[in-house]
């Protein structure tokens, strides 16, 4: 089947590119409010030339900084979109993230009342902007350009304050950055895991075809090879194209408003570094393999990224990680090095759980098995479903974002450090909310009753996590009384229009009739 052609010039760049992996380790997230329809429209018209599209960078010089924007339901309302159009947006989007707290499990210390001050008011945030940059200087330069445009509105468009950084709680933006070690950006987050290894791969995305392995939808072929995977349908991630149900996804009207657009979830997730390390150290005293093995069993990967399914022991995982890092460095200099690097890359993504049905390598409840089941919901029953990914192909999300803050004191949970997590897909309810509710904070689909994702679940200190055993002398191990390691500190749902749609909004050309 020919690849789906999609107009990458009309699609915002953050949908098809995880900038962090393209050499943009610095980011700033900014939120705006419109006080006047015309001023709002003028501001976004002025922004248009700065917006980064999905156009491949092999053809032209990559910019030193990127800019993307997205709108809340309230934002679209304040830009004067017709009522009929507003009503055609999905319910979860118009409600906004705070109103969905019961579904998302944002309770206790994750409750909206505990979020950064910017999220405290209702109907407050209208527009999101992300700047990603190769360097801090490039970031500042782009930020200044935006400030100049903002000044033109004479206060009728305001930049909202209220982000916390540990000292202050009224900062005008959320800063984020890859964690640097020896002056080099790393793909790790604050718990020390390599993050963002398998991102969905879809038709027309223009990404490296090797990313289909582990990132596409499973076929019945060998998961270690390209034959084991197919690209997901474009309509799972971009409106206006067929999705996995062989139809166009439900989208707001008129068609030109939604075409090449999508929805995005923004979440600020605080990581309790001390709680995490205390827990793996304590439990690791009793678990064979120690704290590092507990951390690996919770995630389904060793912290260096090696998947448990292919690398069951720490020695194998470490040897692989060293070889992988070496190959990554050599890849830039020789063709042979590049080939070796690509082979090794597949070892991080080219697997499923077909040879580990009982979870003796990767626990049934481990994070990666929940968030991307890779066809394991067939439970090894051959050909049970029309396709092995029947229950997971429609639940995939493009993950974007970067860590924020620094861990200055590993002996404390306080301070500001975590992950700015963004999830992109054509249905927030079917994709992000479903995964968060049914797979992260619940376990029935995995036959795990109410067991939650050990890392991301909204634990209350009473949950347990079972690490399945492998033989009668190696029984299951129960990690008791899991505390909450990650808490929500803010977030909202956004619509990410295509470039044509942004122009139409700016020129007041949206007519749904």
């Amino acid at each position, binding site marked *: 089947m020919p690849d789906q052609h999609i107009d990458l010039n009309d699609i915002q760049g953050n949908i098809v590119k995880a900038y962090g992996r393209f050499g943009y380790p610095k980011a700033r997230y900014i939120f705006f409010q419109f006080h006047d329809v015309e001023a709002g429209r003028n501001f976004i018209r002025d922004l248009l030339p700065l917006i980064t599209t999905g156009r491949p960078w092999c053809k032209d010089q990559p910019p030193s900084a990127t800019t993307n924007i997205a709108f809340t339901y309230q934002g679209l309302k304040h830009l004067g979109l017709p009522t009929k159009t507003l009503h055609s947006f999905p319910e979860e989007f118009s409600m906004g993230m705070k109103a969905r707290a019961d*579904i998302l499990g944002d309770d206790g210390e994750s409750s909206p009342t505990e979020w950064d001050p910017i999220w405290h008011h209702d109907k407050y945030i209208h527009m999101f902007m992300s700047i990603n940059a190769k360097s801090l200087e490039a970031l500042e330069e782009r930020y200044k350009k935006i400030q100049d445009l903002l000044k033109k509105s004479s206060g009728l468009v305001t930049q909202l304050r209220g982000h916390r950084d540990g000292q202050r709680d009224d900062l005008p933006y959320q800063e984020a950055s890859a964690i640097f070690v020896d002056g080099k950006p790393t793909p790790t987050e604050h718990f020390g895991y390599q993050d963002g290894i398998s991102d969905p791969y879809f038709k027309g995305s223009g990404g490296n075809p090797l990313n289909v392995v582990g990132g596409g939808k499973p076929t019945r072929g060998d998961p270690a090879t390209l034959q084991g995977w197919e690209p997901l349908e474009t309509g799972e991630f971009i409106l206006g194209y067929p999705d996995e149900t*062989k139809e166009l996804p439900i989208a707001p009207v008129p068609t030109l408003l939604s075409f090449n657009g999508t929805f995005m979830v923004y979440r600020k997730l605080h990581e309790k570094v001390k709680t995490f390390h205390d827990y793996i150290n304590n439990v690791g005293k009793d678990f064979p393999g120690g704290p590092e093995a507990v951390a690996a069993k919770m995630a389904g990967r060793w912290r260096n990224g090696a998947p448990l399914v292919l690398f069951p022991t720490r020695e194998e995982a470490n040897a692989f990680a060293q070889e992988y890092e070496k190959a990554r460095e050599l890849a830039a200099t020789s063709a042979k090095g590049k080939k070796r690097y690509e082979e090794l890359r597949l070892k991080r993504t080219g697997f499923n759980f077909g040879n580990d049905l009982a979870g003796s390598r990767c626990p049934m409840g481990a994070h990666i098995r929940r968030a991307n089941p890779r066809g394991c919901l067939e439970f090894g029953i051959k050909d*049970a479903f029309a396709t092995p990914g029947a229950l997971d192909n429609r639940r995939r999300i493009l993950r974007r974002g970067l860590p924020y803050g620094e861990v200055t004191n590993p002996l404390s949970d306080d301070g500001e450090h975590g992950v700015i997590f963004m999830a992109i897909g054509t249905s927030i309810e079917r994709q992000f909310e479903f995964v968060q*509710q049914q797979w992260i904070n619940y376990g029935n689909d995995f036959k795990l009753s*109410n067991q939650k994702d050990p890392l991301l679940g909204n634990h209350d200190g009473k949950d347990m996590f079972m690490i399945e055993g492998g*033989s009668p002398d190696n029984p299951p191990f129960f990690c008791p009384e899991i505390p909450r390691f990650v808490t929500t500190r803010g977030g909202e749902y956004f619509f990410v229009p295509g470039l044509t749609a942004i122009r139409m909004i700016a020129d007041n050309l949206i007519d749904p009739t």
Partner: protein
Amino acid sequence: MSNIAGKSYAMTVITPIPKIWAWVNLLKFWYSKNIRKKKSFGLQTLSLIHYARWVIIRPSQFPRLSSNQPKEDLHYAYMLFFSNFNGSWSQYVDSFHMAIPKGLDRIWKHNFKYPKSVPLQPFHRYILHNQIWTDHYYNAYPLASSNDVKAAIALRAALLEFIKQSENMSPEEFQKAYKAFLFYNQQHIAKMHSAPVINLADQAKVERVRLIESYEKTLRDEHGKPNF
């Protein structure tokens, strides 16, 4: 009135089917139950389902409260579909549609205006149009999913057997046997609690809190000690 009780959802769908095709379906159902006996693996692997049942109701079988009640003049026979499952309406319908689209089409294809199971939105509309809302729904184990019940039954039987077997074991033998018992039953061990919120209706939220509280009470006796 709700289709939801505890972790379960009850779905009733009644669809008209031309009388002649109703007979054909009756034969097909009879054949697959009595002759073919092939297990429907797809349906059984969808572990969110308690059960699903299809029944043909012929026009003459429609109940009357008494012989005084006039007979209805029905142009179609009807197919009753009844299922209980865990999860939301769309999770269930979408799972069916993605996992066993051909099986659904085989059963429903002669029904009046059945659109086929793929694409999804016409199928959604068909089910919703023909769904009968549940008036009363009793659930004996509101905090248990079908997987939880199955696991509990298996674990209970295994545990009783283990107790019997282990009565006269030495401590060393017991430790070995207990480890093996845990290993062979690990897939049945998990911690049960309330369902996630399926529905943001206030009534559903209040009911959920009530269930959690009554369940937590059963875990402790009147002195606050664990009660097993």
